[in-house]
């Protein structure tokens, strides 16, 4: 899907009047306050629009990964977890690896990231 289409879906879900309010590089979670309900709605709409089969957890697998002790334990990403993360973000953003908190990772949830993610699901 092209970025403009993804942004249009996001704007529709979040009831924005104007799609141009969305900067493709900025986080939908942190900068546009996309809620968990908006996110699931967004994932369903993207699924319908892209014709691809995926669950909301596949679009943004971080929450599920953080529940898996192989990936995340005692508040830290394990080596396997870091490797899985870098696969998800490879060719999209280089990781400094320093701060990988959920809030920090939320910063990556932009229209550009979703375009990259959809191409790789």
């Amino acid at each position: 899907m092209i970025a403009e289409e993804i942004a249009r879906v996001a704007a529709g879900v979040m009831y924005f009047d104007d799609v141009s309010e969305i900067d493709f590089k900025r986080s939908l979670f942190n900068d546009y306050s996309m809620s968990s309900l908006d996110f699931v709605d967004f994932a369903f709409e993207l699924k319908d629009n892209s014709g691809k089969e995926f669950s909301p957890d596949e679009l943004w697998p971080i929450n599920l990964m953080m529940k898996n002790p192989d990936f995340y334990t005692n508040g830290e990403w394990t080596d396997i977890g870091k490797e899985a993360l870098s696969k998800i973000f490879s060719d999209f953003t280089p990781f400094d690896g320093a701060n990988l908190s959920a809030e920090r990772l939320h910063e990556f949830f932009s229209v550009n990231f979703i375009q990259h993610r959809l191409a790789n699901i």
Partner: protein
Amino acid sequence: MKALIIGGTSAIGEGIARCLAAMKYRVDFTYHSNTEKAKSLGEALGDDHHSVRVDLSDVSEVSKFVASLNAASAPDVLINVAGITHDALSVGNIGADLARVAQINFLAPASICARVVELMMPRRCGSIINVTSIASKMPRVGNAAYGSTKAALERFTATLAIEVARYKVRTLCIAPGFVDTPMFHAFAGDRRKDIIKNLPLREILAVDDVVNSVAAFVGGKIKTTGTTLYLTNGQSVL
């Protein structure tokens, strides 16, 4: 259109199953111990139905059942009817009894709801009905476990409703007063006449009274979500 009834062998569940089948739903149901009833109801519903034995008191059976539900088998309507009463003072070591009532009346139906809504949400339609009881609002000596599990289910359903409303999945709790079923007969025993004498309406509900409310909600004649519909025998429920 498909309906799934948890507790199809209950008197109320059977009434709902027959009504929804008449409304052209394909009705699947669960049962626990009443294989005879499950068989006769299955025959009445015809070939195009599926019934499965699930012991709701067993957490792993419930998990297995929940995991077996998928997009292809997902119902358009889910009705949680199965339930048990437990009439005892809340004094002393009540943990095991409380856990059992909570598992059957609250945790199992809540877990089933959670999975079914997940399957309904992408379709952007669906109806969930949880059968509770006016006991949720009416403390009576001996009904702490039963009443509090029904109250928990009502509270759960109300929150679930706002979480899934965006996806046009609607919920309703139907909370009857006494209904003329084996559950009421077991509870009332030889006090039936006395119990009815003390009810403001001096009558108890028939199974059809509950069934009609289900049909009205499922058929879109009652447009609401997240609420509890109290069907009383005249008691005021505030």
